């Protein structure tokens, strides 16, 4: 059905895809794994000739025997979506924000003259009919992804390409979306080419697996084989990067001594208008302790973090830091904020694209008016974050750095103020598998060397297993379970914790 023969793609002199040959038969499911920049998405886009004009494509792309590369525009338009369709990452802006999703699903059907009804398609992806009248912003991430799937099936294609279809969804929603995809692929005997950086997601859905690295397919085989016996070192690195909950080898943190509490949250409630986002939370973080706060999006994790940092006033309850209630305003609040620093998920948007590393890291010093030699303080912080030698990086702009380096800059910006507590909101979620491990190791090293306590907010239970001493599970504004990592993740006592653990895709 789909055959790629010696596909190469160049941008200028840069070879992004290098001699890739793949074969996909009807009803077959093939996963394409790789990190950002490995060329996997370029392969996907080339199948429907969707690459930008600047791309030079060589080799053959045979879709039902016809070469997509040399097709006339008219033929190409007829083939697009009718023979093969793509499930894009719906949580991003792959849906037109100003048009109703029903119209967007119906559009290819009208265009290609396919019979079918939007209602039926929505039903297949388990969405209520009336969602057809919704605009994308009115839907949750999971619902948008279902709309993308319904749209992809609109013209009854034999091949569906899914490009990171569940990235940016939380575990529970991801499990639901994957279930829908698996069911539809089996029912309709579709060919599926699924692209992801997450091996566990591919393991859930695909029979076969191809691993891409620097534009080349370095390994190909049945999913089970590839993951169990990786032959290429890159595949081995990818499989190792995803922690297996319960596996002592993936538990990187060393047990912390019980210590005096650094931060105490007592009976905190936070309301947004009439919605109660945080509903009576008690949480303690000891000195030098790493606590993971896990839960789905919308569970109130981020609101709780903002309240802890003094960015939002609790409606009731108290936040106590180092024995003193967190001040609500003035100089005292500023002094408190210096001790609690934030690390955000996406370093690319957390850093001002026009600020050099030096300025980005020094900003905190300037805001707090900290005396001393700015450059030497910044250098120390940057080296603490393992960007060595610092002099190589101080003058760099964020876009000149890799994702992992950017996240280190963000961490350096926090460290320069010598905080005692780091609040990290999904610190590794947008990083590649290989970089992710390095950042986790860095956070652990900071704890060991500086006694820095952390609150890690995440929906990734694997991360909690890797790094945390204790886990608190948050659901609908309440902490439903908390305790040591082993206790909560291996012997969960609450149904919701069990549901979360069940949703984690297994390699």
């Amino acid at each position, binding site marked *: 059905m789909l055959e790629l023969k010696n596909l190469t793609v160049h941008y200028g002199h840069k070879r992004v895809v290098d001699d890739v040959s793949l074969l996909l038969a009807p009803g077959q499911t093939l996963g394409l794994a790789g990190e950002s920049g490995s060329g996997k998405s370029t392969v996907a886009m080339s199948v429907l000739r969707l690459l930008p004009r600047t791309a030079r494509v060589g080799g053959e792309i045979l879709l039902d025997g016809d070469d997509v590369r040399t097709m006339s525009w008219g033929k*190409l338009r007829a083939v*697009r979506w*009718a023979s093969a369709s793509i499930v894009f*990452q719906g949580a991003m*802006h792959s849906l037109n*924000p100003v*048009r109703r999703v029903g119209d967007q699903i119906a*559009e*290819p059907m009208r265009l290609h003259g396919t019979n079918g009804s939007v209602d039926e398609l929505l039903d297949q992806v388990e969405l209520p009919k009336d969602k057809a009248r919704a605009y994308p*912003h009115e839907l949750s991430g999971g619902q948008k992804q279902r709309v993308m799937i319904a749209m992809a099936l609109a013209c009854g294609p034999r091949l569906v390409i899914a490009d990171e279809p569940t990235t940016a969804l939380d575990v529970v929603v991801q499990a639901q979306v994957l279930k829908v995809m698996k069911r539809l692929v089996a029912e309709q005997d579709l060919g599926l080419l699924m692209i992801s950086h997450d091996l566990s997601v591919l393991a859930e859905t695909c029979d076969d697996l191809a691993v891409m690295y620097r534009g080349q397919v370095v390994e190909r085989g049945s999913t089970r084989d590839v993951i169990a016996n990786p032959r290429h070192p890159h595949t081995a690195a990818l499989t190792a990067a995803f922690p297996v909950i319960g596996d002592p080898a993936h538990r990187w943190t060393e047990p912390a001594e019980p210590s005096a509490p650094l931060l105490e949250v007592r009976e905190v409630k936070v309301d947004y208008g009439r919605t109660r986002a945080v509903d009576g939370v008690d949480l303690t973080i000891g000195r030098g302790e790493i606590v993971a706060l896990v839960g789905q999006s919308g569970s109130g994790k981020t609101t709780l973090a903002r309240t802890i940092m003094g960015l939002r006033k609790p409606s009731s309850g108290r936040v106590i830091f180092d024995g003193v209630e967190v001040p609500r305003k003035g100089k005292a609040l500023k002094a408190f904020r210096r001790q609690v620093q934030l690390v955000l998920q996406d370093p690319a948007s957390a850093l001002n694209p026009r600020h050099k590393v030096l300025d980005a890291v020094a900003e905190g010093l300037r805001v707090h008016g900290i005396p001393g030699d700015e450059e030497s303080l910044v250098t120390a912080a940057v080296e603490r974050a393992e960007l060595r030698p610092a002099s190589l990086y101080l003058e760099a702009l964020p876009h000149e750095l890799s994702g992992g380096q950017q996240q280190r800059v963000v961490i350096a910006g926090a460290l320069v103020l010598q905080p005692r507590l780091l609040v990290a909101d999904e610190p590794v979620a947008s990083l590649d598998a290989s970089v992710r491990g390095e950042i986790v190791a860095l956070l652990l090293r900071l704890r060991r060397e500086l006694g820095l306590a952390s609150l890690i907010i995440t929906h990734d239970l694997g991360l909690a297993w890797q790094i945390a001493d204790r886990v608190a599970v948050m659901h609908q504004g309440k902490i439903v379970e908390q305790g040591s990592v082993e206790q909560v993740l291996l012997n969960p006592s609450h149904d919701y914790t069990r549901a979360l653990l069940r949703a984690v895709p297994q390699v």
Partner: protein
Amino acid sequence: MRLAGRLGGAALSLVMVAVLGFFLFRVVPGDPVVSMTRGRPTTAAMQAELRSQFGLDRPLHEQFWSYVTSLLRGDLGTSFTFRRPVADVIAERLGPTLLLVGTSTLIAVGLGLWLGVRAAWRRDSAFDRAATGVSLTLWAVPTFWLGMLLMMVTGDLFPSRGMRDTDTAPDFVSQALDVAHHLVLPSVTLVAVVCAEYMLVMRSSLLEEMHAPYLVTARAKGLRDDLVRRRHAVPNAVLPAITLVFLRFGLVVAGAITTETVFSWPGLGLLFYDALTGPDYFLLQGLLVFTASAVVVMNLLADLLYGVLDPRVKVV
């Protein structure tokens, strides 16, 4: 709720405009009566007479009170130069201004948005470079200079003064043709100058949308290039331009001071010029309140329309 907020905000702006209108002309240095009668032989008695006629001899709070009460009745005071109610003078000049500036704005909006879309869609093409270059040049050129240049270049082809000839037959068709004939030069001048702004805003807004993932989705569905543009890209890209267009509509009633002055078009712009040269304080105050109110109202309309065009913004 949101609607009430917007209406309340607009109402507050209107009140501030009214208050500002009053005090702005009370804090101008110098005696208004002296400046109004400058260059004319006046006696102290005549000046006192004028002062009491305009109520300028009364305490400030009394003046303000009578200003507010008459404003509520739609009375903007009396013009010193025209010796008629300011409201009547403005009403008389509103028609020609709406005709000239309204027509030009509509043409400029249509042309500018169209050019902007075409230029952005084929970025760096010859069309894009030409359109952007010409627009920037015209935008940079002083309006009065462009107007005078047009007069010189076109020679006697189009009339260059006023709105109609005195000797035109009184029937409707001849009158309309005559006005249209007079309209050509000033409106071409205005379009040339204003169009660039819409074009550049539309162009940059569409360029921002060009890399949006939903356009890839649309292409993957098999849509033709022009459908991708019309159905998906433009409806999103036009949103930022809407605010600008409506802000401009608000300024339509202010007329185009330079253009109307250069072509002696009997609209509000020329009236502004005359009121400034007077100086006719009450007329200026009335014009200020009137045009500022128009901007506030148009801004409100833009907000409301935005809510209709962009489902993410819920106004009502």
